[in-house]
């Protein structure tokens, strides 16, 4: 991996709206239909209008103004240890100044229960080698909990957590195949990179059919960088980046191998499944 000298990621707090100079991202509440369930959701959106999928932030395009369109304050934090959290007051905004290390992928998440369980979590990607780059944001959902939170009620954390929807980029199979960042489309001999961030509360493990991938980053399994694997754990909160070089054409599934996570509302197939399409 041709790593460049790392620069520290800097995040500063500002409550003054500076959207005229920088890109903005909005925190927007709404609702989506996942695998037959309607769930309440919070999303990072590229406009004040609610969108079903969180917007991935490309760090080199920052700084970002985060505008909070929700009715409660949110506290955001990058995945790095020691980075200070950022308060984004309800109806207000804060600025994220991100100078990300190159060749690294991170998470931006809400520290509140409301933000966590409603899916206010996204990927922040630094610059990587110049290959096509796909982004898989993994998450799981308990619909009833989302509606409690939408009604500004607390969810009892001592109750068993039983998610019934499992998503890649906030979509479950087969809709994942319509998402150009989830459905890998490449040609024999080409190289693609895939950043994977697990925003959920449970570990996941992805199995690649047809290919082994080289692990370029594994924030919770640092000793595995350089390993060649077909089954890749992604612990809760972890960011993993893999390099895929294809040597055969065809359509090859990639899916969670915790097989409850390949269901929609408990029915197979669904959940965390996508496809690698390789043209000859």
């Amino acid at each position, binding site marked *: 991996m041709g790593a460049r000298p790392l620069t520290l990621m800097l995040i500063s707090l500002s409550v003054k709206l500076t959207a005229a100079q920088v890109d903005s991202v909005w925190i927007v509440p709404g609702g989506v239909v996942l695998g037959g369930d309607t769930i309440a959701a919070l999303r990072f959106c590229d406009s004040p209008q609610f969108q079903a999928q969180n917007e991935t932030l490309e760090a080199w395009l920052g700084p970002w103004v985060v505008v909070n369109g929700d009715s409660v304050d949110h506290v955001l934090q990058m995945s790095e240890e020691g980075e200070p959290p950022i308060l984004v007051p309800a109806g207000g905004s804060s600025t994220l100044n991100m100078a990300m290390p190159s060749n690294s992928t991170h998470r931006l998440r809400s520290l509140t229960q409301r933000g966590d369980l409603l899916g206010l979590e996204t990927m922040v990607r630094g610059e990587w080698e110049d290959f096509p780059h796909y982004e898989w944001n993994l998450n799981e959902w308990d619909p009833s909990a989302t509606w409690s939170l939408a009604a500004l009620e607390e969810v009892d954390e001592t109750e068993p957590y039983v998610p019934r929807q499992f998503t890649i980029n906030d979509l479950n199979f087969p809709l994942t195949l319509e998402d150009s960042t989830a459905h890998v489309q490449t040609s024999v001999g080409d190289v693609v990179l895939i950043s994977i961030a697990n925003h959920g509360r449970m570990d996941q493990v992805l199995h690649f059919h*047809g290919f082994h991938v080289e692990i370029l980053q594994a924030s919770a399994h640092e000793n595995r960088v350089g390993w060649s694997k077909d089954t890749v754990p992604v612990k809760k909160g972890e960011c993993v980046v893999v390099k895929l070089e294809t040597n*055969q054409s065809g359509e090859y599934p990639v899916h969670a191998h915790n097989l409850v996570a390949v269901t929609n509302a408990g029915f197979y197939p669904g959940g965390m499944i996508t496809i690698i399409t390789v043209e000859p």
Partner: protein
Amino acid sequence: MKVLCVTCLTFLGISFGHAQLSPPVLFSEMNGIHFLEDGTALPIWGYGWTTDGFITLPGPLLHYQEGDDVVLAFHNPSPESHTIHLHGLDVDQANDGVPSTSFYVASGESTTYEFVATHPGTFLYHCHVTTTLHLTMGMYGMVLVTRSDGAIFENGPVVNQDVPLLFSDLEMATNLDPVGSFPFHDMRPDVFMVNGKSGSQLEEELIWTSPEAPTALRLASAAYSRIRCSFPSELNAQLWMSDGRAVPAEAIDSLDIYPGERFTVLIQPDEGYDGGFHAEFLHMIDDQLESTQWVQVKDNSLHPSNLISLQEPSVDWYPNPASDFIQTEVERNCKVWDSWGRLMFDGLIGADRLDVSTWPDGVYTSRAAGGKVSRFVVSH
């Protein structure tokens, strides 16, 4: 898309003529039973060799040599469609065993899966039809690709034996009522196994080691749990491979194995070692410890020469297949179940023949008191 060929292999045929088939044919069935530690007979689906005529949990070990051009023949006499997904072997789309992108093998049909075993290592195979259900019902097994020179990979360490250890679990309620088991999202396994065995059953999986050369533990998980193996320092455990590829060797005292992962760990305890290692099963959602299984490891010098004779043998039935009567050489107390787990006989069997003339055709499973499981076929 491959063209399926329907062969003349019928269910009854499995019991008779398949011993002449070469290479061996793997088959799938949905009428097996598996005995839990407490003696409970649990329905399973799974794979077996047609020459044996019964399925096992896990399925038979598929063992190949590096570089083999493998042609795996598969027959499905079961009532539903199945496939074989060759997990980790990077086969092409046609042989991938995924119904939507490859093909399924319908009831009564046969096919072959073809691939080159390009890399030595530890792999899995499993059905990829309604995978969440078919896997927990038992449709999985291990694939082991080894080298003729005994090295675990080219220029890698030479081992004196390979010990396959396949971790898996199941939810009894699902196996007892697979049709009514939907939805799957709240599946919570309650039986935890190593090579299909739990607790005291694992005494049969005791690993004998030698201080002269390392033993390769071929660890794989078809479980719904995360497996955490804890290796005492006396085992001198070293991690060498994952998912059929070499990794930088490192001494380890614990190893997490997620569903679908495989590892090769070499152990080489000193002479006189008498111990083992724990395998903890942790739930994937809440990390709760569900079960701890104990795998025994002993040095060869402790091997009692009469150990085998101390074990109760299984019941040797003859004739097998039987049509009217069946009997055994030695008088034994035993139980016999049909393929649905119904008790067909419980009593003393020996010189007096057991009348099976009114029993339906099928595979029957017996277990003698204190002995092992054996099976026979009734065919009229």
